[in-house]
C-alpha cells in the first residue's frame, strides 16, 4: 500500500455496526426463504380481513395446459406464464417437475414443509428483532444516527445533484466519500425506520394472540389478510433494497466496501485530480 492510499484509509464502521450488519444478513436471508416456504402453504394474497369472501389479488398456481399443467402467476386478474419458476418448478429432491408456488431453490427448507419453515422463521424472527432493537439503541446512544445517518442541511440542498450522480453511476471520491451521501442516508433511514418496522408489525398482526393485545389493532393495517399482504410486499421491497445496495457496493468498489464492513477500514477513493 503506498503512502497516498495509506493517508486515505479511514476507520469507517465500528465493530457493533459490523457485527449487527452481518447478523442481519443471515436473519433476512433465512426469514425471506423460510417465509416463501410458508407462503407456499396458501399461495394467494388478499386485502381485508378474511380470505374466503374476497378475491385474491395475487395467486401463484398451476393451470391445465394440453396434457399437463403450466405454472402461472395471476396479479389483479392478469395471468402471466411463469412456468419453471413460479407455479411449477423442478424438485430439488428428485428432479421432477412439481406444482409449488415458489421453487425449492428459493425456500428453506427446500421441500414443502410448513411446520419446519415456521420453526426457522419464528426463531430467526426473534434474533432479527433483538438485533434490530440493539441496533436502534446503539445508533441513538452512540450518535451514529445523528452524526452519520441524518442528512445535514447542506446535504438536503444537494439532493438534486446526488440523484443525477447516482443515475450517471458517478461516485463521490476523496473527502466527499467520507460521509454517506444524501440518497444513501434517506434510503437507510427509510429501511431502518419504515420498512423493517412495517415487516415486523405486519408479521405480528398475523399472530392471533398478539391481535388480542389491543383488541382490533389489526384494523390499522386493514385486517389480517391485508397484514399478510403488507408483510409480503415489505419483504419484496427489502429484496429490492438489497439488490440496489449490493449493486451500488459492486460498482463503487466491491472489495473496499466489503473489507470496510469486515475490518472497519475503508480507503477513500482517490480524487480524479490526484491521480497520476
Amino acid at each position, binding site marked *: 500500500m503506498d503512502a497516498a492510499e495509506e493517508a486515505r484509509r479511514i476507520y469507517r464502521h465500528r465493530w457493533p455496526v459490523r457485527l449487527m450488519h452481518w447478523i442481519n444478513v443471515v436473519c433476512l*436471508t*433465512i426469514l425471506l*426463504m423460510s417465509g416463501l416456504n*410458508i*407462503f407456499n*402453504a*396458501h399461495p394467494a394474497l388478499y386485502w381485508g*380481513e*378474511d*380470505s*374466503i*369472501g374476497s378475491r385474491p389479488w395475487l395467486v401463484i398456481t398451476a393451470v391445465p395446459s394440453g396434457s399437463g399443467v403450466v405454472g402461472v402467476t395471476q396479479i389483479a386478474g392478469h395471468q402471466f406464464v411463469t412456468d419453471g419458476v413460479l407455479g411449477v418448478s423442478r424438485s*430439488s429432491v428428485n428432479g421432477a417437475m412439481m406444482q409449488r408456488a415458489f421453487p425449492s*431453490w428459493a425456500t*428453506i*427448507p*427446500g*421441500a414443502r*414443509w*410448513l*411446520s*419446519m419453515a*415456521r*420453526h*426457522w422463521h*419464528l*426463531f430467526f*424472527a*426473534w434474533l432479527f428483532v433483538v438485533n434490530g432493537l440493539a441496533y436502534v439503541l446503539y445508533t441513538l446512544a452512540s450518535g451514529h444516527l445523528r452524526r452519520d445517518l441524518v442528512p445535514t442541511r447542506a446535504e438536503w440542498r444537494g439532493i438534486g445533484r446526488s440523484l443525477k450522480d447516482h443515475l450517471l453511476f458517478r461516485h463521490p471520491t476523496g473527502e466527499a466519500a467520507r460521509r454517506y451521501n444524501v440518497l444513501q442516508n434517506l434510503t437507510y433511514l427509510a429501511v431502518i425506520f419504515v420498512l423493517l418496522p412495517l415487516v415486523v408489525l405486519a408479521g405480528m398482526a*398475523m*399472530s*392471533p*394472540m*398478539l*391481535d*388480542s*393485545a389491543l*383488541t*382490533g389493532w*389489526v*384494523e390499522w393495517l386493514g385486517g*389480517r*389478510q391485508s397484514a*399478510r399482504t403488507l408483510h409480503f410486499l415489505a419483504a419484496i421491497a427489502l429484496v429490492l433494497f438489497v439488490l440496489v445496495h449490493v449493486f451500488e457496493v459492486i460498482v463503487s468498489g466491491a472489495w473496499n466496501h466489503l473489507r470496510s464492513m469486515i475490518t472497519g477500514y475503508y480507503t477513500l477513493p482517490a480524487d480524479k485530480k490526484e491521480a497520476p
Partner: protein
Amino acid sequence: MKRTDDDRRRALRIAAAAGGTLLLGACDKLSSSPSFVGLLKSAQHLSRTAHKAVVGRRAMAQEFAESDVTPGFRSNGTTMPRDTDYRALLQGGFVDWRLGVDGLVERPAAFSLTHLRAMPSRTQITRHDCVEGWSAIGKWKGVPLRHLLAQVGVLPQARYVVFHCADSMSEGSRDSRYYESVDLDEALHVQTILAYELNGAPLPVANGAPLRARIERQLGYKHAKYLMRIELAERLDAIRGGQGGFWEDSEGYEWYAGI
C-alpha cells in the same frame, strides 16, 4: 483489463451460486438434526412467555359484526370422519353422543347435547386463522368451557385441558384420532367455548358436529372438532405422542399456536 473483469464477474457468480447451494444444503441438513430443530422450536417458549407478559390473560380476540361473516365457512382437516362409531352417532342424530369430562377433576361427568344446550351460552363472531395463512369469519354459539369446568371441579394440580376427538387421521406413519391441548389460561378464557352452532345453524359435520372447541386466540389446529372427551392433565408427555396434539406429534407443529 476487460478479461480480468469478466473473470472476476464469473468468479463472483460461481461463488454466489456455490454459496446459495451450500446455504440450501446446510439448511436442509440442519432441518433433519433433532438437536438443531429442538433449538429452533425453543423459540415458541420465548413467544409464549413474551405473549403472556404483553397480552393480558383476559385480553379479548376481536369480535365482528354480522355483516362480516364469511359465507360458507371453510373446512380443513377431516370433513367427514371415517370412524364407524362416529357414523353411528351421526346416524342417530347424536342422541347417544356424550361428552366425557375426566382426568384431574373432582366429579367426572358425561354430558348430552341437550344438557349442553341447556347450559348458559355465549355467541361470538370471530376470525378463524389457519396456520396455512387463510382466515374466515364465523358466528359461533356454545357453552363456555369455564362453565363446564366449574361443574366438574378442576383439581389444583391440573395444568392442561386435552381435547379427544372422534375422527381418525393419517399423516406419515401416524394413524390416530385427532386430539389437541391448551393450558388453563386459554381454557378458562371467556371466549373459549364448546360450539354446537355455526352461523345460526347446528354445527355441520364438516366443521366438527356435534361439538368443537373455539380457542379464539390461537391458530385453527387448536380448535379441535368432533369432541368426545375432555381430560384434565398435569403433564402432556404421557398422552399419545407426548407433544400435546395430533399435528404436534405427526408433523412437529409448535404446541404453542398463538403465533
